């Protein structure tokens, strides 16, 4: 059996259509994770002891267990306690939770690089707490974590490939379906790899350009 480039080229349109599923889910996950990560960071800054203790366990759990297992937990275990989610919803929820935790941990690291004098100045102007967050801290924080967010976006895109395991028809599952009909798994999987390569290299490239613009603004 030889590698057939014509066959690979022929199936790329199908895989590109399936890629829209990965892109749509990734976009949803990133928006959810950014909101979740920011909310979690602000919540942690309130330093309510029991709340932070629970969050600390959650962080350790999410960072200490495989994403695939977290997806299984949402897919297999939640129905057992009466919460029946579709594979897509379960998968999006699992990856979004995972990503929120990682984004919040990144924000924790970036927060201490913000000049304390700015908080003093804002408080001296009697800015209420929510405005200190909205006008002083968050704009700088987002700018600082942007490179990590771009990286996190590529991790999320790669994570959506795992959803094929819980029957979401994404690029990988589409490739597997095509392969099981044509008996040419190698070409179809290479095709799937190329799709992810294209998506993630584009994200990295766009990320670098956006960072460049921010760098110029700052100078």
């Amino acid at each position, binding site marked *: *059996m030889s*590698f057939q480039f014509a066959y690979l080229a022929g199936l790329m349109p199908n895989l590109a259509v399936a890629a829209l599923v990965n892109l749509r889910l990734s976009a949803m996950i990133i928006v959810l994770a950014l909101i979740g990560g920011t909310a979690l*960071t602000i919540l*942690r*800054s309130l*330093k309510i*002891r029991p709340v*932070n203790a629970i969050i600390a366990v959650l962080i*350790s*759990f999410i*960072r*200490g*267990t*495989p*994403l*695939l*297992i977290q997806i*299984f*937990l949402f897919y*297999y*275990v939640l*129905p*057992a*306690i009466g919460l029946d989610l579709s594979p897509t919803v379960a998968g999006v929820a699992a990856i979004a939770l995972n990503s929120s935790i990682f984004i919040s941990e990144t924000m*924790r690291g970036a*927060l*201490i690089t*913000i000049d*304390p004098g700015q*908080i*003093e100045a804002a*408080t001296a102007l009697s800015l209420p707490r929510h405005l*200190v*967050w909205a006008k002083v*801290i968050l704009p700088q924080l987002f700018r600082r974590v942007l490179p990590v967010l771009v990286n996190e976006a*590529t991790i999320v*895109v*790669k*994570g959506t*490939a*795992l959803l*094929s*395991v819980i029957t979401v028809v994404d690029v*990988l599952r589409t490739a597997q379906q095509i*392969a099981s009909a044509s008996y040419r*798994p*190698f070409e179809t*999987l*290479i095709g*799937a*790899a190329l799709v*992810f*390569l294209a*998506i*993630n*290299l584009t994200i*990295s490239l766009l990320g670098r350009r956006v960072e460049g613009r921010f760098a110029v603004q700052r100078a």
Partner: protein
Amino acid sequence: MAFDPAILVQYWPLFLQGAWLTIQISVQAFLLGYTLGIAVALLGLMPGRLPRLAAASYVEVLRAIPFIIILFVIYYGLPFSGLRLPAPLVGTVALGLFASAYYAEIVRAGILALPRGQFESARAIGMSPLQAMRHIVGPQVARAIVPPSTNMTLTMIKESAVLSSITVPELTYQGLVVQGNTFAPFEVFAAVTLIYWGITLAVAGAAHRLERRLGVAQARSVSRNRLAASYLLLERESAR
């Protein structure tokens, strides 16, 4: 729904076997990945455009593709070229390859962070090349690469769960087998999750001790400004 410990009592040998295979695969993939990673990092630091381009492409390509697809391409691609290998071996090699791209970046950054002339200065004050590596260069590079290497190794251990999808009988696979036999997802995934959590906590703990011995800077000076700390710190300061 009640938690039924009988399932865990009945199936614990499977979980144990799975966990042991996960550990074995992780150790082997770490050794393979780090060796390859160092080689790729050194290739990238060689003079000339071609080696640098080769190393950079290797890293970029492996980092842009989901591990599950790298795994499938190798697993289904090898028989295609007439080579049939057992799934655990294929899985270990794929995991090592995947990790090597990240290790290469870590090692490269660690070497580049070293101030110039450290080795030469050590030689100039009379150290042998071996002493210079052992006392001057080695500790500085180690300090820079241990924390990110730990992170990557934890990521790699967690990615090994994906090997279940090519029937490698590691922890996740055994969990899915027991789940298929018992239809008790809660008990099964609680056990699997806790075992993974235990493994990663143990590795993180060991790495933390290593970092302390190497003198990696611990928690940066905490802001003494109470007002700022109320916004910018997420934990209470420990009592001093």
